[in-house]
């Protein structure tokens, strides 16, 4: 930092020297050699808000000298021992500086050096300041407020579901088809292909897919059908194996389970697609289920599935891939329907409660959009000032990233 600021200082002085040499009037040059610029004043160091206690914000009033004769400012820092070292430099138009990577709880003073043609004029030192950390970022009160409302609702609904209250969720098209599709594969004596997307277990879509897998695997176990599940992530393979194993256990047929039902292929996207494509045309599954996070492989897989005449059910929250599933599959769970299906099938109070809580979030969003649009329309069409204020201060105050 010191080297950098010294470098900038040298550059500024060099630049100043060149400027001075470029002057036609030699008298000006002589004057600039003698007169130092007026120093900066009112140097204040304050704790930077909402950080982890490593930053101080330094500000000052600019030098009163002719702006053309001030080339910049050097920021000097002392650790309470009156020994000032330069920690940075800024151009003359700027009058603030954030000093980073300090030690929390330690006291620091600052001095500002105004760089002129003939040298550096030092300001009075600032009062000592101590960098401190804060537990909460109060500027993000709006997010906390809405977050508490929605999370509170989720928790309340979860408890309510656990207490035995039946939570209503509307019927989701395509779910009935799931069992039908598994049944069809059994009748035809052909396997079921389950693809849980190509993302890892840290993707919520993969989690939803694994939950649905539990239900599908149970039906497969009951019907004594065959499931194939090539995956592209090792962690997904681990979870899938556990889920299928549990389904076979609960169906009372643990001996029918085999680890080969879910197996790892490769992390490489198109390598995985090539392998699954090959599997599809050779094994000819009667039912293909694509549930999870998909990318470029969505169309390739569903197109191949279509070409072998399989019943295809897809579900993803990746907007870019939905068009292909909608076009090539028999049923598609669009976006959040995937998560809803997971909650619906599992009947898990946590998932049901989350879904209901999120519905409350959607109500908040819808109300905000109606109020906001109304206010914006009234404000712009009829110049109603109070509406503009409501829009700016209330609505945008809440729905913005401070």
């Amino acid at each position, binding site marked *: 930092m010191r080297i950098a600021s010294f470098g900038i200082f040298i550059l500024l002085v060099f630049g100043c020297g060149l400027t001075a040499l470029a002057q036609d009037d030699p008298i000006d040059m002589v004057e600039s050699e003698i007169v130092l610029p007026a120093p900066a004043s009112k140097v204040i160091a304050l704790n930077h808000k909402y950080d982890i206690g490593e930053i101080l914000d330094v500000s000052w009033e600019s030098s009163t000298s002719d702006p053309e004769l001030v080339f910049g400012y050097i920021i000097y820092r002392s650790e309470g021992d009156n020994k000032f070292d330069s920690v940075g430099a800024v151009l003359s138009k700027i009058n603030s500086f954030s000093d980073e990577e300090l030690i929390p709880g330690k006291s620091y003073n600052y001095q500002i050096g105004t760089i002129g043609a003939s040298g550096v004029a030092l300001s009075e030192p600032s009062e000592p300041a101590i960098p401190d950390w804060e537990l909460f970022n109060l500027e993000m009160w*709006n*997010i906390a407020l*809405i*977050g508490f409302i929605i999370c509170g609702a989720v928790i309340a609904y979860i408890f309510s579901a656990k207490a035995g209250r039946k939570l*209503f*969720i*509307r*019927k*989701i098209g395509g779910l009935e088809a799931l069992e039908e599709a598994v049944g069809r594969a059994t009748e035809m004596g052909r396997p079921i292909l389950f693809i849980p997307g190509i993302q*890892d*277990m*840290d993707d*919520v879509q993969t*989690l939803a897919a694994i939950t649905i897998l539990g239900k599908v695997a149970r039906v497969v176990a009951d019907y004594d059908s065959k499931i194939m599940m090539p995956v592209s992530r090792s*962690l997904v393979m681990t979870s899938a194996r556990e889920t299928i194993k549990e389904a076979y256990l609960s169906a009372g047929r643990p001996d029918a389970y085999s680890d080969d039902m879910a197996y790892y*292929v*490769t*992390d*490489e996207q*198109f*390598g995985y697609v*090539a*392998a699954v*494509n*090959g599997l599809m*045309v*050779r094994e000819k599954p009667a039912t293909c289920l694509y549930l999870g996070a998909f990318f*470029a492989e969505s169309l390739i897989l569903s197109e191949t599935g279509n070409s072998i005449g399989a019943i295809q059910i897809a579900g993803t929250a990746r*907007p*870019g891939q*939905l*068009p*292909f599933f*909608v*076009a090539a599959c028999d049923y598609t769970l669009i*976006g*959040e*329907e995937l998560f*809803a299906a997971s909650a619906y099938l599992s009947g898990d109070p946590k998932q049901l409660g989350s*879904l*209901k809580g999120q*519905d409350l979030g*959607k*109500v908040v*969003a*819808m109300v*905000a*959009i*109606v109020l*906001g*649009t109304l*206010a*914006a329309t009234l404000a*712009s069409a009829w110049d109603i000032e109070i509406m503009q204020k409501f*829009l700016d201060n209330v*609505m*945008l105050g809440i*729905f*913005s*990233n401070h």
Partner: protein
Amino acid sequence: MEQFGIWLAALLTIGIISFLYKDNILYKACEAIFVGVSAGYWFVTYFWDNLYRKFYLGIQGAELSDQIFLWMAVALGVMMLTRLFDKIGWLSRWPLAFIIGATAGLYMMTYFVSNAFVQIGATITPPPSMETIGDKISFVLIAIGTFCGLIYFFFSKEHKGAFGGAAKVGIWFLMVTFGASFGYTVMSRMSLMLGRFDFLFGEWLGLIK
């Protein structure tokens, strides 16, 4: 040697493209090579980037707190491998729980702020220029589309009556969006194909500059 690489890449590309005709021996061979090589590549990448660069180099001269974090990560990684042993296989659930928990926590904030708050704010903020009739129509359309889209994804009420009507409008908006997205994706897929053709006709056959 470089020419050998180009010839090999060209043959493998043709092998994979031959799947468009039908499954064949050449495709099967290419598929096996692709899967094997990519799995190996990932293994090597993770070894050098994670174990060597991030852990081995990272721990040297690091502060004690950073060293502890790195060792904790290694411990979690080793716990994943306990799956290989039946008796202590349950330990592998812990790192899995850690990954899922940490990601859920991160997503909660990022999606809440970037995909919900800022987007609602943008929906109700009139665009800087509302002069033309087109600007006004697009502002209203965005608001209606977002509203009806939210209704479609509302699961606590049956889609009947006016509510069902609004949901239908929502799905229409979604379908129009899918159409646009479809167009973009077709463009992207053509680009992938172009890349390979550029290689075949350029680098391999030398017919294009």
